[in-house]
């Protein structure tokens, strides 16, 4: 490997690295504004100047200069210091000194660099330039006078988000960042431009003037808005979650999160259930915990064990599901289901419901088949990975299902089972070493889901989707709790009813909803108990409401679609009289005479891991284990209707109770709906 000297210290580096990267290898921090390791190199801010020998006797922009063997790099010479001070002085010529009212204040790259390289006063007497504000949608607030034209936002939307809609118009002193005719950015991942902006030109519109970064308590946790399990940091002040930011996890979300993950947090303060309620007559009346438990116990004791059932929702942590599973098993009920959408997966090997390539491993695939899924709406971060792979290696992508704009080029095969079969029959025409199938939950929740799964399994076997060292069979879940639920066997026992059957008229006497809001219960006439966080569909149907904790209010394990258990932490306390879900179930179990054998979350977690060891492998995704999955045994043979495959998500911004309670998400949803109705406007 080539070697270079950084300030006299020799380092080895990979060929192709830039001078900036080599300097970082040696532990030297180079100031920068425009350079970002996940974006293309622009080299226009000039803040990263260093001195390089051999070379011309002038400072060089290290971000855009390839490092060479035997190069000598200096980052702390008087010339470098003077050059950086000069660059910063020029940047500050037109930058307003409004840090006290700027939302970026305290976490601003320009502020930080000014500490190191700024002058104490200004030599510039002329007027500063002023730039008109630009509309960029309901999420991004602009104060364009602060912009230093680093073009990170331009590169991000073009390269990562795949919607080339931001640009820099005019030139020189008049250069401005804008979208075309000031339209909103058509992306599910716009919030990341604010993280990228090194100054306060782009800030979070929903959180404008709400907080100062140093007054927030930061908690590292896991997102539950989709099944990706993005790593996030929840920033709270007092009892309120003020904002959600991404954490870097190369295997999952890199350093991006989607807008629902980021901006739905205002939904945590609205429509909340903060005390128990019991229905008296037609009214839900406030009650104490004891009254609520007594009401439930009275109904449960009257009911036969096979006339009670539990449905777990999409945002549940594994511990609360385990507590519910143990409780209902102890009560003798076989009616247990975590698949409120009616998905067919749940029996057979674990690999049959995982995203087996892993999200990172998807980049190695050389052909990807999307079946009945729109990853842009179901898991924007998976879609971003697909786009990354498509840009880097030109992976071939085929789609059966809806013909949506996915931000990358794909071959549209057809809408339904007929075109899928046709493709399977012509499998020898498509040569692929590492083919991957991504099966959407939209096809698996159909009444003929088992038959479709069987057909897909047979086709996948023809393509060699599972082979030694490669498992390309992927299920794209949309529910954060789903894989955890399936892993612990939160599915109907012997003779038990599925969620769909439990919702039918007369199926049950007592129905327990563990945060389940996405199931149509209009036909059900059972006595319904809802344990959850928001006054949403489940609570409206309920006869007893038990207020639970939202994902920011409890510690818990979540297993993402890859089968990777991740530990979420509590950022704030549950609202009002609400308690953590497992504790409610533990207390309820005593009233029902089936006391659960654990008194602390740790004891519950220990039992969970003892019963299901996969939950102990925190942070680990099994990935492509050699041929653990027999594809042809998936599902059950049967007749498949020729109805076109559909994605389960039509409105990205309204998929769960938290998002539905969020004002920001409602605004985004309305905007997205208006764009759907007139797609030509964007052209």
């Amino acid at each position: 490997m080539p070697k270079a000297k950084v300030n006299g210290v020799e380092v080895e580096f990979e060929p192709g690295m830039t001078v900036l990267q080599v300097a970082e290898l040696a532990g030297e921090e180079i100031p920068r504004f425009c350079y970002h390791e996940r974006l293309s190199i622009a080299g226009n801010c000039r803040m990263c100047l260093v001195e390089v020998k051999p070379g011309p006797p002038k400072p060089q922009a290290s971000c855009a200069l390839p490092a060479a063997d035997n190069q000598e790099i200096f980052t702390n010479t008087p010339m470098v210091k003077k050059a950086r001070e000069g660059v910063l002085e020029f940047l500050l010529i037109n930058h307003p000194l409004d840090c006290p009212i700027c939302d970026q204040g305290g976490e601003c790259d320009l502020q930080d660099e000014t500490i190191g390289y700024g002058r104490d006063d200004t030599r510039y007497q002329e007027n500063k330039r002023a730039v008109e504000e630009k509309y960029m949608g309901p999420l991004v607030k602009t104060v364009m006078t602060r912009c230093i034209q680093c073009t990170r936002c331009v590169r991000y939307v073009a390269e990562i988000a795949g919607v080339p809609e931001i640009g820099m118009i005019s030139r020189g002193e008049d250069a401005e960042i804008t979208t075309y005719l000031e339209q909103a950015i058509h992306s599910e991942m716009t919030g990341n431009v604010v993280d990228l902006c090194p100054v306060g030109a782009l800030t979070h519109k929903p959180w404008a003037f709400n907080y100062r970064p140093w007054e927030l308590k930061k908690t590292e946790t896991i997102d539950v808005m989709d099944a990706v399990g993005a790593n996030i940091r929840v920033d709270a002040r007092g009892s309120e979650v003020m904002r959600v930011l991404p954490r870097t996890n190369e295997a999952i979300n890199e350093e991006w999160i989607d807008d629902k993950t980021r901006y739905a947090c205002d939904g945590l303060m609205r429509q909340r259930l903060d005390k128990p309620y019991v229905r008296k007559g037609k009214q839900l009346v406030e009650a104490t915990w004891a009254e609520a438990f007594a009401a439930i116990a009275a109904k449960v004791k009257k009911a036969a064990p096979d006339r009670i059932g539990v449905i777990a929702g999409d945002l549940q942590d594994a511990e609360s599901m385990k507590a519910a599973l143990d409780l209902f098993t102890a009560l003798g009920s076989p009616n247990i289901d975590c698949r409120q959408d009616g998905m067919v997966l749940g029996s057979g090997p674990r690999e049959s419901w995982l995203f087996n390539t892993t999200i990172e491993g998807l980049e190695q695939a050389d052909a990807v088949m999307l079946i009945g899924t729109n990853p842009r709406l179901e898991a924007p971060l998976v879609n971003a990975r697909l786009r990354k792979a498509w840009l880097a290696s030109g992976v071939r992508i085929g789609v059966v299902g809806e013909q949506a704009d996915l931000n990358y080029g794909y071959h549209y095969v057809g809408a339904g089972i007929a075109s899928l079969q046709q493709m399977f029959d012509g499998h020898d025409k498509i040569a692929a070493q590492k083919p991957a199938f991504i099966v959407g939950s939209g096809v698996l929740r159909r009444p003929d889901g088992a038959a479709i799964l069987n057909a897909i399994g047979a086709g996948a076997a023809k393509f060699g989707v599972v082979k030694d060292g490669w498992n390309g069979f992927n299920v794209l879940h949309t529910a954060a709790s789903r894989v955890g639920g399936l892993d612990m066997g939160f599915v109907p026992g012997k003779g038990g009813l599925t969620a769909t059957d439990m919702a039918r008229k007369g199926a049950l006497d007592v129905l327990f909803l563990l945060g389940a809001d996405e199931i149509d219960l209009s036909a059900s006439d059972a006595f319904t108990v809802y344990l959850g966080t928001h006054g949403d569909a489940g609570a409206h149907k309920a006869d007893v409401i038990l207020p639970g904790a939202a994902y920011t209010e409890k510690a818990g394990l979540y297993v993402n679609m890859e089968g990777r258990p991740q530990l979420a932490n509590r950022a704030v306390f549950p609202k009002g009289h609400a308690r953590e879900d497992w504790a409610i179930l533990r207390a309820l179990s005593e009233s029902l005479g089936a006391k659960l054998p654990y008194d602390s979350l740790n004891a519950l977690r220990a039992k969970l891991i003892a019963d299901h060891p996969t939950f102990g492998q925190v942070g680990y995704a099994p990935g492509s284990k050699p041929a653990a999955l027999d594809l042809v045994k998936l599902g059950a043979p049967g007749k498949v209707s020729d109805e076109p495959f559909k994605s389960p998500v039509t409105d990205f911004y309204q998929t769960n109770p938290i998002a539905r309670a969020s004002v920001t998400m409602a605004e985004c949803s309305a905007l997205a709906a208006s764009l759907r109705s007139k797609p030509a406007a964007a052209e």
Partner: protein
Amino acid sequence: MSVRRLAKEQPASWDFAPVTLEKAHWWISKYPQSRKQSAVIPILWLIQKQDGWVCEPAIRKLAAMLEMPVIRVLEVVTFYTMFQLEPVGKAALIQVCGTTPCMLRGAGDLMKLCADKIGHKDHISADGLFTWQEVECLGACVNAPMAQINDYYYEDLTPQTLGQIIDDFRAGKAPKPGSYAGRHTCEPAGGATTLTDPALYDGSKAAPVKIPNAPEPA
């Protein structure tokens, strides 16, 4: 130069004239199929030739034609000041050079005349016939002061000659481009003062020259 914005009033739709379209395809054919965005500047020129300016529907049309994001076309259009973002006079677009040599030779008087005869700088005249602008150096300093009117240079101007030229355009005539001081292109005013010996031009001074390193004649 100031902030460049698209005109407030835009036509509802826009389309290529057949002759423009034909030329546009000729330009596109010069580049590889995957690089056809390279034709964006030549085709913007053609659009401007067709209408005198570049309107917003034309930007969208061109972006679709070249399969590039519309913001990228907008970036190009706003970057180059040669692209007019507002309608210009039907008879003439007068671009008066205001850089130092022309300024010293009386460009200020020309601009005052334009302001008197046409109106505000950068705005189309009330009758829709003229627009005048101040531009940076057009590279004809030896014939200062000068102006570019439509496609041609009009040089060695005085307020009288420029006034006449404007009147001619208004009358629908096409005034002759070039110097208005009676000289041929950029020859010295008042005739040549050097290299006047006729023998320079009759070949009599031509002598065989030995070119070093030249190959020997066979």
